[in-house]
């Protein structure tokens, strides 16, 4: 029973065009933002399968970046998230792969993000209708359900102990 609430079906209120390829992905990015306690400085993003094939048309890249910048699913700035990365100091890189070995689903992404001395690798899957799930944090399996009506800052707080300290880059 992945869907638990009437608002998982009617909702989220979101910018288009796709609940699975846009809204659900904003949530994954936003979870990482909350996990790191703010916008990362660096992010390596892998899109798999359907995400890899259609991310441009659905604005999946804008959605993930929007989330990493701390935006919600109905934030009209998502449209311009890519242009806003400079202002927020986020450097990012995308790569595309056929299928995700860690989780079998067409809408999967793995993001490695760094903020200050913290570095984290997070696997997320968008289940449809704006509902998502974090299935991995730093190679450990998880089952963290993300519904847009949840408060991600509270949710993410309990997973902070899983953050590992990365190599301290110069100037940080």
């Amino acid at each position, binding site marked *: 029973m992945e*869907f638990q609430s009437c608002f998982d079906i009617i909702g989220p209120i979101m910018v288009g065009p796709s609940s699975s390829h846009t*809204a659900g992905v904003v949530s994954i990015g936003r979870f990482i933002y909350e996990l790191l306690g703010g916008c990362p400085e660096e992010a390596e993003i892998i899109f798999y399968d359907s995400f890899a094939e259609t991310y441009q048309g659905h604005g999946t890249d804008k959605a993930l970046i929007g989330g990493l910048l701390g935006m919600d699913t109905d934030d009209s700035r998502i449209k311009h998230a890519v242009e806003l990365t400079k202002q927020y100091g986020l450097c990012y890189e995308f790569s595309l792969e056929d299928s995700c070995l860690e989780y079998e689903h067409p809408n999967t992404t793995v993001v490695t993000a760094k903020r200050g001395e913290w570095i984290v690798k997070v696997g997320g899957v968008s289940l449809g209708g704006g509902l998502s799930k974090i299935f991995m944090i730093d190679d450990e399996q998880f089952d963290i359900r993300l519904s847009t009506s949840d408060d991600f800052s509270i949710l993410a707080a309990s997973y902070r102990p899983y953050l590992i300290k990365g190599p301290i880059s110069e100037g940080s």
Partner: protein
Amino acid sequence: MEIRSMNELVEVCERERKTIGEVMLMMEEEKSGRDKEAIIGMMEERLIKMKEAVDSGIKDPSTAPSGISGGDAVKMHNYVKQGKALSGSYISDAMTFSLATSETNARMGVIVATPTAGAAGILPGVLFSLHKNGDTSYKELVMGLFTASMLGYVIANRSFISGAAGGCQAEVGSAAAMAAGVIVELKGGTPEQAVNATAIAMKSLLGLVCDPVAGLVEVPCIKRNVIGTSIAFSAADLSLAGVESRIPCDEVIEVMYKVGKDMPRALRETALDGLAMTETGKKVKERLFGKKS
């Protein structure tokens, strides 16, 4: 309380003497711990956002950034206003409102996913047409959204609602099926008749593939939303007339799941086959992303 099937849903409704919408509301109260007024308020907010998407789409002649959609809601609206529509006012208004919402979605405007953004046009189309043509109040429309979410909840947990997972039958199919049930309930049909309409609508869309041109939620998605509203009204009419689905709703949902599982990856929102791979579809993709396929 937990509802796992349409059968169970009808049983609970009959036992508790409640509508499908009321059962959803009761379950939400129990699961979320929020009080009834707060839950209804959240649903009202969604209805208002839907209305705003319809209102902005209906008068916006601009095209989406891709250039392959937009402006059709204005055309349809004018055509209907001139009294030319053949379908009757319920369906032709639903088609117009649905177009308006789906075009707003393609412009990256704010919409409400019902159950997904790709299928976001169908429910608002049907609901605001019921309001305009049948004096269904906003209060009743809000209850209709609870009905829709209950039906969608069962479908989503037994099968799927996204095109990437199960093809367009899971997306537009689920939305049309939900909408059919809502029409029946708002028009005074029994829970059994509502579930019956859900089954009929879903059967009509079984096997529909997800093949968006250039991966955009525009072609053919927008028009499939529009046609989805007609299927919802037809299914509701059949059910309200006393016609039954020969295959029970739970079994139809199971078939939708199996068909979706068997559907090739190329026809599940990857834009690798179907309409996306027509001569025209390929040209659009090349023009937009410069990628030869």
